């Protein structure tokens, strides 16, 4: 199917290369193929429709990058949009000020709740927490025993219940008490699988929520889920107010379009993905990877990336010159951020960099997508003169910019600080400081290597 699709698209490209702007006509073929790709990835029908409509509106009249055909450009726009909709790296979890923080794990039958409870417990303990787990699945045969076995495997304590504790609420209440008494800071509650239309069992979850006051209600969904994903996710969210999603079984070849559907109907972030049956097969969710997977156009996407890189390389060279001449403006800053977003998060960019010296430190800096969007919005609200000379941005202008971008003056101040710092940092990089930072005598050699290395777009040094 993939071959087929890329062949089709190649044909589309050939016919359309060299047109300057996106029009209803030259976008049409690409959009049709994208629609099919999304549907085959199990993205909900309605979600696909809205997405396609919106892309059409957004892309119309846009200038086509010199290295891309209109179709490729449309695909790039769609992918960017998917990444945006899927959200940023959201593996952050909430914790209560008054421990234990209770996490309620919910979802349909067989989605992977019990397994994910174990994985999450392990992940938490690796990150300095002291979790306790409990299963309140009194229905499915050997469900509680299953969590018991897993807890032993990963060496995490479990509250297994006292004789006479037959109800989910009883088990949950005692488990919370046990967590408090034994100084456990997180309680993970594995619940029985249930259908979203099962009124009694959905009521039971609401009862548990009321009793436990969970800070996280994590909806566990199977990556292979089809069109029905919107219904179940929507209903679980309506009843419980889920706070995040764990997408399981991503180690297979399902395209995982359900991620988009679930995110769309609940608005809640995808936090983790399950990539196997073992307790360590658990990863943060990466929107960029998920988007490429949903589009299922591996080869085409990498082609587009290359093409974009080609375009960006020219820009990167210009950027370098600007830095030398001390002409790196806010406008350039914005371009850089835009380019960074195009190839994903700063995280993934940094992963491509050599892990030495100061760059190693940078690995630990988390930049979130929301932040980048805010920065771009602020710069968008400036006048060209302001962008070219940040020195003229006084208090009055700052207030105006904040208002125009829907942010606060503090946000604007912070951005300007960031910009001047970046400018300084990049200047020192380009001025050959890099070798020095890499340390000692070998520094020069390393810097030489770096110079030849293909640096990701947006890094003009």
């Amino acid at each position, binding site marked *: 199917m993939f071959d087929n699709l890329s062949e089709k698209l190649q044909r589309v490209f050939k016919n359309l290369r060299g047109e300057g702007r996106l029009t209803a006509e030259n976008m049409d073929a690409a959009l049709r193929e994208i629609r099919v790709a999304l549907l085959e990835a199990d993205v909900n029908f309605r979600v696909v429709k809205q997405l396609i409509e919106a892309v059409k509106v957004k892309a119309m009249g846009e200038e086509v990058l010199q290295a891309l055909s209109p179709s490729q450009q449309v695909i790039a726009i769609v992918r960017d949009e998917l990444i945006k909709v899927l959200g940023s790296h959201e593996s952050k979890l909430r914790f209560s000020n008054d421990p234990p923080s209770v996490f309620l794990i919910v979802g349909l039958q067989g989605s992977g709740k019990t397994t994910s409870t174990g994985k999450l417990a392990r992940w938490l303990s690796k990150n300095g927490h002291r979790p306790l787990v409990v299963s309140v699945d009194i229905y*499915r045969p050997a469900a509680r025993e299953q969590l018991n076995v897993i807890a032993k495997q990963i060496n995490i304590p479990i509250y297994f219940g006292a004789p006479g504790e037959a109800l989910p609420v009883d088990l949950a209440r005692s488990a919370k008490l046990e967590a408090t008494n034994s100084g456990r800071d997180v309680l993970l509650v594995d619940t029985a699988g249930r259908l979203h239309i099962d009124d009694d069992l959905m009521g039971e979850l609401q009862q548990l929520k009321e009793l436990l006051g969970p800070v996280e209600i994590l909806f566990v969904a199977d990556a292979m889920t089809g*069109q029905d994903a919107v219904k179940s996710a929507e209903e679980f969210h309506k009843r419980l107010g889920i706070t995040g999603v764990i997408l399981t079984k991503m180690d297979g070849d399902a395209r995982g379009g359900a991620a988009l559907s679930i995110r769309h109907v609940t608005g809640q972030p995808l936090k983790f993905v399950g990539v196997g049956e073992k307790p360590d097969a658990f990863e943060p969710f990466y929107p960029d990877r998920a988007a490429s997977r949903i589009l299922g156009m591996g080869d085409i996407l990498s082609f587009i990336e290359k093409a974009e890189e080609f375009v960006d390389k020219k820009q990167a060279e210009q950027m370098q010159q600007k830095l030398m001449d001390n002409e790196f403006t806010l406008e350039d800053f914005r371009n850089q951020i835009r380019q960074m977003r195009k190839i994903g998060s700063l995280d993934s960019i940094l992963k491509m960099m050599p892990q030495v010296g100061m760059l190693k430190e940078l690995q630990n800096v988390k930049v979130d997508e929301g932040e980048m969007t805010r920065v771009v919005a602020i710069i968008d609200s400036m006048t060209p003169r302001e962008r070219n000379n940040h020195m003229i941005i006084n208090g009055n202008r700052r207030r105006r910019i904040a208002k125009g971008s829907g942010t606060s003056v503090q946000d604007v101040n912070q951005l300007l600080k960031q910009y001047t710092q970046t400018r300084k940092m990049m200047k020192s990089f380009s001025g050959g400081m890099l070798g020095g930072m890499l340390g000692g005598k070998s520094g020069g050699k390393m810097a030489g290597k770096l110079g030849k290395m293909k640096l990701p777009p947006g890094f003009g040094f």
Partner: protein
Amino acid sequence: MIQTLFGSVEQEPTLLEKLKSGVQKTRAGLVTRLEDALSGKKEIDADLLDELEYTLISADIGVSTTNEILDRIRERVDRKLIGDASELRSLIREQLLEILEGSERPMPHVFEPPAVVMVVGVNGAGKTTTIGKLASRFQGEGRSVLLCAADTFRAAAIEQLEVWGERTGTEVIRQKPGSDPSAVLFDALHAARARKVDYVIVDTAGRLQTKTNLMAELEKMRRTASRVIPDAPHEVLLVLDATTGQNGLEQARKFTESSGVTGIVLTKLDGTAKGGVVVAIARELRLPIRYIGVGEQAGDLLPFEAESFIASLFE
């Protein structure tokens, strides 16, 4: 404040809420519109065909099967063979019936017991539960059953099957967790022979069809079975979760390749998912659908009926 094509994502959940209710509204309106259309109040036009496309794709039938059906309808409309929408329902029904033809075949009778039934599928599809239900059904038909706990991998999988054994009064042949599944199978088949039971039902660990080593393990189990009982396994049931989307087709292909699937059990049809991917599977692989699962209790297993299945797609 993050402006996406769907509106704002994080900072303004209200917009998302709005969109959400928008989806609901169209959905509610759609049913009525479709009913109007199908009760003959409307001519067949592009809008109606769009609605039909929505119905079929929403049932997970898939783009290509849906297109095939719609193309045939369009063709007949163009040739003026059908004019009003009331004929549409029977036409769609016909199309789907044609694809599902032969999918109603029951499990063939095995003249020389024990009949060996292997149950395979991806993780969490409902294999073990289905086995409990099958044991209960076969016993209800006056047959004797033996269960084989060949999922030695998943935590407490053996215990789960043992509970089903107790519930249905069926003996379970097991070994320690982590043992070779083929060894357990070997034991079970010998026990079945010695006890002269009618059916041996084999539970296997869930596995994604992309894991070649695990798929090879199923091939090995098949070989083991045929070494003990020449025609075994007589039936290989692929358990498919009705909520599964287009990946179901890949599951059917790969499991058929490695373990010679002879029939499908479609589980979790008591939810809102339609399980339409079996239409695509039937179209490509002509696999019969033996049973459907409609709940978590022993009695919640029904023979597949194409007619009512098709009717449920339009509910």
